[in-house]
């Protein structure tokens, strides 16, 4: 009998509480999709790299735990709405003599059923979505999926079931607690409770609104001036200003707006605009706190999605000037030690019995540090703040130098012609054109560099943007100095570069990646104490793509969850508000307002309610993204993709809310 009631309730819930199901199912779907990442083909390719594998797993697990907290909160919140809505129904059970224990049982069974259905549907949907995600991953990682495979990740299924099982379990406990607290009288008379409009005074609303605008504008200006530097305490103040600005904005905006619209009689006294305005005023005014939260969450989401997608582009570009060598390695020189075995990479390779194949072109060279620093060199063209920033970003410090003969041997293996330098000439190799305008200005205006007491002529007019090795870090700044340079030089590292023969590319790649992985795992430490680190170009690409992939995954994962949470909370608030406003709609109908007008009013309300926080969030994001622009440069792809995700999910919630509210108003004759 009870299970029959529960099953019927669930059936009815599917219709009435579509938002709840939508949220649960989407949550499970997204949760599954992202956790299935590990077993995707493209990732399996990358998983050969142990560092990547570990960090990806850790990141996804960590994010999953965080996300399950967010979702847990959301689901309990949504569930609470439903229980409140059903107070009367539960009250009737009680007047019929059903003990609370049995009511709890019904609810327990209902939660179980809802959970089961949403889990199954969500996982099935997730399996579909994860195929699409798989293609996206392949695209990001630049992996060709020659053999496309339909993947079902068992571990992700288990994880979803366990995590959501725990959440549903909490919901059950929560329901029991709520029911045990209810009194029968309250349950039967649960309807009718008017929201209190908190801000009615016109003057104060204008004042608070003005204050919020001032706060927001100041925050925008500050963030655009100082940029997004987490180490800067100024940023913290800016964030606080932004948060309070947003809070005040939602606290006052509707009252402020109503006073403005009242002045414009043409809008105010048209159709049932009076009613719509007052409804919105009421809602935003009572829910200003959640509106603020949602706005900030959307802001985070938009920025997150943008950044995530754009990091990929940034990394692609950073690989541009970094393609000439197939592998590079360096030995960190210990200047205390005199033993050449510890400081010369050639000796090191002999020690570990590694020899180059005949088809592999290679060059050995040494890197030195000069006494001159980069910030001193460019000091005439950098503001004081820029000098400090340069050092802080690890772009300053003593300049690196390489001797001409070494440079020429590098040029030789790349097939370039060698270069002549006289004793008082130097060459500038640098990628700093992309970082600061100081370098191109310097190159244009200065003909020589003073190192210690000696003047050296700069032979090139524009910095050469070709790195001398394959490197993870795409920024470089070298001086090529004459072989008989007699200034202060400190040996920094000994290095080699390799270029494979295309015919034996795979074999060479295998040899060097194994060598470098073994070095990373300290396999040769007992043979030679030297610290040698190397990367093949493919390893660098994989690692950077892997990083991009991780950022995109986590960004997408969090972003989607945030959007769902925000949209669901708003939808639920709208729906519960609709049933509280039923009396008003009934009153409207009775004085001759047509159904068409009412539907239009519902549409307008839902629209404004949904898009008020989104609009402010978009303004926030635009400013935030411009501020971030110093770090990433944005392109259109990321705008389109992020808008697509945001638009679809938000749109679906908006539409189902509109339909839901319409149904509540249409059928609600209670």
């Amino acid at each position, binding site marked *: 009998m009870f299970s029959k009631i529960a099953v019927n309730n669930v059936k009815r819930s599917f219709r009435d509480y579509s938002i709840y199901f939508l949220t649960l199912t989407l949550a499970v779907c997204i949760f599954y999709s992202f956790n299935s990442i590990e077993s995707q083909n493209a990732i399996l390719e990358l998983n050969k790299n142990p560092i990547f594998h570990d960090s990806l797993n850790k990141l996804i697990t960590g994010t999953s735990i965080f996300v399950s907290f967010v979702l847990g909160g959301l689901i309990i919140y949504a569930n609470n709405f439903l229980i409140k809505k059903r107070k009367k129904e539960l009250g009737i059970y009680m007047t019929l003599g059903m003990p609370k224990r049995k009511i709890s049982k019904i609810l327990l069974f209902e939660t179980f059923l809802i959970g089961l259905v949403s889990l199954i549907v969500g996982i099935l949907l997730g399996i579909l979505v994860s195929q699409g995600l798989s293609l996206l991953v392949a695209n990001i990682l630049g992996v060709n999926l020659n053999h496309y495979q339909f993947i079902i990740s068992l571990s992700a299924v288990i994880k979803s079931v366990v995590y959501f099982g725990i959440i549903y379990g909490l919901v059950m406990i929560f329901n029991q607690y709520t029911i045990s607290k209810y009194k029968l009288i309250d349950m039967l008379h649960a309807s009718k409770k008017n929201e209190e409009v908190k801000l009615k005074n016109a003057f104060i609303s204008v004042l608070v609104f003005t204050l919020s605008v001032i706060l927001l504008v100041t925050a925008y200006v500050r963030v655009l001036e100082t940029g997004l530097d987490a180490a800067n305490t100024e940023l913290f103040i800016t964030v606080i200003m932004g948060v309070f600005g947003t809070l005040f904005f939602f606290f006052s905006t509707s009252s402020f707006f109503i006073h403005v619209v009242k002045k414009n009689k043409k809008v105010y006294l*048209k159709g049932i605009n*009076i*009613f719509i305005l007052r409804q919105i*005023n009421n809602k935003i005014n009572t829910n200003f706190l959640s509106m603020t939260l949602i706005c900030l969450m959307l802001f985070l989401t938009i920025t997150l999605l943008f950044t995530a997608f754009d990091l990929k582009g940034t990394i692609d570009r950073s690989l541009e000037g970094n393609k000439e060598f197939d592998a590079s390695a360096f030995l960190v020189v210990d200047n205390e030690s005199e033993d050449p075995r510890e400081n010369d990479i050639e000796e090191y390779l002999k020690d570990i019995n590694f020899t180059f194949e005949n088809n592999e072109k290679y060059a050995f060279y040494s890197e030195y540090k000069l006494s001159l620093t980069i910030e001193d060199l460019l000091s005439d063209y950098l503001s004081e703040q820029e000098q400090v920033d340069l050092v802080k970003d690890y772009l300053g410090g003593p300049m690196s130098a390489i001797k001409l003969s070494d440079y020429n041997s590098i040029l030789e293996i790349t097939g370039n012609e060698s270069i002549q330098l006289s004793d008082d000439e130097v060459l500038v190799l640098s990628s700093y054109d992309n970082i600061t305008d100081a370098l191109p200005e310097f190159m244009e205006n200065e003909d020589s560099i003073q190192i210690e007491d000696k003047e050296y002529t700069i032979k090139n007019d524009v910095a050469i943007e070709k790195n001398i090795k394959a490197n993870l870090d795409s920024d470089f700044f070298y001086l090529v100095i004459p072989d008989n340079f007699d200034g202060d030089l400190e040996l920094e590292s000994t290095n080699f570069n390799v270029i494979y023969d295309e015919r034996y590319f795979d074999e060479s790649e295998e040899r060097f990646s194994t060598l470098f992985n073994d070095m990373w795992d300290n396999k040769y430490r007992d043979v030679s104490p030297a610290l040698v680190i190397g990367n093949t170009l493919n390893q660098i690409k994989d690692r950077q793509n892997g990083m991009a992939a991780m950022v995109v995954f986590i960004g997408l994962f969090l972003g989607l969850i945030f959007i769902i949470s925000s949209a669901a909370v708003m939808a639920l608030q709208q729906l519960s508000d609709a049933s509280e406003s039923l009396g*008003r709609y009934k*009153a409207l109908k009775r*004085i*001759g307002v*047509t159904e068409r*007008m009412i539907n239009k009013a519902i549409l307008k309300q839902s629209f404004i309610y949904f898009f008020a926080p989104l609009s402010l969030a978009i303004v926030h994001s635009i400013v935030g993204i411009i501020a971030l622009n110093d770090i990433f440069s944005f392109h259109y792809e990321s705008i389109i993709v992020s808008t697509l995700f945001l638009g679809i999910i938000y749109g679906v919630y908006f539409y189902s809310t509109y339909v839901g509210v319409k149904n509540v108003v249409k059928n609600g004759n209670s």
Partner: protein
Amino acid sequence: MGPSGSGKTTLLNCISTIDTVTTGRIVINKKDITNLKIKALEEFRSKELGFIFQDFNLLDTLTAYENIALALTIQNMAIKEIDKRIQQVAKKLEINEMLNKYPFQLSGGQKQRVASARAIVTEPSLILADEPTGALDSKSSRLLLDSFEKLNREFNSTILMVTHDSFTASYANRILFIKDGRIFNELIRGNDTRKEFFNKIMEVVTLLGGDVDNVL
């Protein structure tokens, strides 16, 4: 007038076009409203009819002024006209002092007067009042009924009122008694004083309620 279940509200619903008739015709202002199209019906409802309800039916989120204005704005009336009419009506019903108050700041009688203002502001040919004094104390009832009389005299508005309170009914000019869905009796005030009319009503009510045959 009539006891519960006699069909008073059904009649009102039919006249107000909220409900449709199965047989017969309803003619208002020489217009047969039983076979109007939906659009025409909506227009008829908003232009020719005014409603007053027992529970006032005011929107709690709107001020008195806005509640009254709403009846006009849904007809897309010119803005200047709206304000003029509201001020006029408010004066007549003596509510111009409380136009900027919200319903919760008003007493029951005041609320019902605001609701009445909303009903007549569109200058309908027929005002339908469903138990307008049902939720009021006797003093407020009397005040409201006085203003109804005034409306009837000065605006020439026809008021069709449903009630089962004899005192309220005594304000009317013509009373139809309904029982089990049929017209049972009719009283016309003519030149009677209200006291005389009230006594006549009481007689009919006694007759209505005292169905002696059934008791035995």
